[in-house]
């Protein structure tokens, strides 16, 4: 539906993004992502013909956009922009019917067909019930839906959206993106949308268009993107942010504070929230013995914990138990998260008891019975308090062991 050949976008003769070669079919959802000021808006405006390209060609529906009049383009390309709306007393119906602009006569008389299209657009955006309301009475999310319905009323074959869900609450975000996706498939519209959040893009888009450093870094499926190493090459992640290919999520890794290291015995998902809490509170942590691919393994890796890991579906080997014990010795305290215990990880219970035996204070979270445990807590909130308490005691006896 829309295709570019060596497109270069920018203003004042200076290209911001160059060498863009994309081709988007009807029904396809392409997410444009990239760092701030990478030229996403410039590129989108050029695709929507709101800016003239500095070079290259844009083909819409098989014809060169440069040869079309503003009216012809408006019948093929709809746009939702970041432009701030001034307060007006326009009703939703009036605003959406403005989308018929390229079809109506100079008095903007709505024909039956125009009316039908306006109602179809309102229905597709799920805002029929708002038709009589004024724009100024709506929430941000509703207003965004109005602008989308207005673009749909243009009966476009291509829909360009610049940050359509930024500044919206999470529910409205997902709702609007799903609406766009559904309508795009039903009406076979090619959608190109810039998104602020990489994770959202990974989950929603059929293809990613990654713009960075003045060029297209990648134009491929989210799966290919992940296979190539994820967003590392996008933002030049510097250890503060990490990406988990299994979870398709980007994680913020809080900077390590000068706090002691803790050892966590976990598995089967019992440790994930504990890791997050420790990371948030600024603790470093080591954990084991985890099976590779376990959700605890993924989250711990994401947060930068030291992991003693066993191959998936293998019983924990004595070597790994030994390594875990070595690691735990360097820690100020240990936490046992009451993981489900079975034939493949029964060593973890023994590991916990051995840790306690070695004189490392052991906090048990949950119902498990562990010999030699210092404290048992029932909830994560209690856990954070008891960690502080235990560490106070340790510090009173001896300084926390220095880490390597």
């Amino acid at each position: 539906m829309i295709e570019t050949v060596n497109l270069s976008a920018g203003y004042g003769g200076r290209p911001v993004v160059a060498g863009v070669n994309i081709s988007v079919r009807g029904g396809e959802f392409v997410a444009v992502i990239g760092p701030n000021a990478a030229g996403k808006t410039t590129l989108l405006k050029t695709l929507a013909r709101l800016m003239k390209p500095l070079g290259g060609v844009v083909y819409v529906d098989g014809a060169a956009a440069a040869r079309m009049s503003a009216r012809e383009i408006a019948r093929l390309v709809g746009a939702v922009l970041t432009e701030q709306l001034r307060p007006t007393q326009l009703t939703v119906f009036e605003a959406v019917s403005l989308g018929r602009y390229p079809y109506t006569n100079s008095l903007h008389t709505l024909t039956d067909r125009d009316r039908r299209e306006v109602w179809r657009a309102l229905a597709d955006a799920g805002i029929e019930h708002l038709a009589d309301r004024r724009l100024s009475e709506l929430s941000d999310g509703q207003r965004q839906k109005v602008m989308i319905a207005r673009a749909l009323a243009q009966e476009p074959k291509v829909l360009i959206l610049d940050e359509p869900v930024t500044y919206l609450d999470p529910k409205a975000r997902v709702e609007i993106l799903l609406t766009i996706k559904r309508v795009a498939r039903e009406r076979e519209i090619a959608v190109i949308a810039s998104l602020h959040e990489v994770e959202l893009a990974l989950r929603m888009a059929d293809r990613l268009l990654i713009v960075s450093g003045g060029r297209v870094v990648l134009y491929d499926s989210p799966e290919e993107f992940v296979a190539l190493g994820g967003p590392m090459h996008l933002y030049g992640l510097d250890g503060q942010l990490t990406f988990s290919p299994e979870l398709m999520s980007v994680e913020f890794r809080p900077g390590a504070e000068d706090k002691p290291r803790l050892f966590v015995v976990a598995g089967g998902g019992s440790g994930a929230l504990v890791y997050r809490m420790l990371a948030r509170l600024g603790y470093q942590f080591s954990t084991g013995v985890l099976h590779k691919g376990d959700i605890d393994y993924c989250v711990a890796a994401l947060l930068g914990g030291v992991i003693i890991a066993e191959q998936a579906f293998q019983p924990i080997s004595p070597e790994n138990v030994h390594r875990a014990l070595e690691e735990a010795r360097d820690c100020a305290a240990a936490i046992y998260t009451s993981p489900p215990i079975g034939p493949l990880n029964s060593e973890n219970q023994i590991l916990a008891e051995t840790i306690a035996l070695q004189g490392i204070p052991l906090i048990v979270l949950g119902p498990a019975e562990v010999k030699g445990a210092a404290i048992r807590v029932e909830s994560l909130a209690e856990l954070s308090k008891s960690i502080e308490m235990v560490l106070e005691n340790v510090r009173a006896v001896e300084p926390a062991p220095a880490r390597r």
Partner: protein
Amino acid sequence: MSRKVLTELGVAAEFKPKRRGRVLLLLCLPLAPLFIASIVLGGYAIHPWDALMALAGGGGAEESLIVQSIRLPRTLAAMLGGASLGVAGAILQALFRNPLADPYILGVSAGSSLFLAISIFTGATLGLWTPTSPYSLYTAAFIGALTVVIVMVALSGVVRTTTTILIAGIMFSYLAYAITSILQIFADIERLRAFTYWIMGSFSGARWSILSPGLPLLLVFLFATIFLCKPLNALLLGEDYARSMGMNLNRARMFIVAAAALPVSIVTTIAGSVGFIGLSAPYLARQLTRTSNHFTIIPASALLGSTLAAAADLLSRLAFKPIEIPITAVTALFGAPLVIYLLLKGRGVQV
């Protein structure tokens, strides 16, 4: 919600034209009594019956003279001029997306006056007409108005704050008046007398000789603005959105700028600077019709502008009879407080 209810809602949403017709009809009501009052009342009161006879071409010689060559042109000038100023205000407010935009405040009237002064005092008329010919006056005023609107549009691209543009407009007015005053000092008596007519700002001097080219043009303008409503509505969403829906921005802007300058220059040539009608009429129109749709706002602004101007003109000649006061002295009485109110209300004001 059931399909049926939705369709009914839809019908309700599309019912607007009918309600719109009713409101516009209502706004026409004060025009007839104002017209009669404006013909009948003044320094010399005329019996309505005599006035009617005079309008029909009969009646006493004195009444006939007053009605036909003084009252009637004056009334028509005030009514059509007011309507045009109201529409010009609505157009400027949409162009600047600013409810405080008004030809008087933005300095468009002052620009017209300045060029009128230049034309009269220096006799620069492009060599086409005599300096006091209506045509050279209209041309000069139009060039002045157009210049100011274009400068203001360019300026609004640089400074985006509502109030800065207004201050720029007011300062431009001062500048224009300063130059006009300097021109007056060096002018000879004959030309000075010709010019004092515009300083006052009053429809009292409206005679057929000067009205004949201007009034038909105003009438054409008023009807032609219906074609501006579509782009003006699109511009409510902002320039980029308007363009994305197929509006040719440069062409639309050209027409809008010309449409704002033309009526102001004509009214200024007929009556001098007339303030605040372009501000109040669209404001009242939006308050009364509760819409921003220009297909309603433009005609409503015309009707309200006409009403306001005719009423203000009537007051200006009756308040201290037989002495007339400038019309802007009357319009400022309600216009200036409105500006202050809108400034205080700030960003929430709707266009």
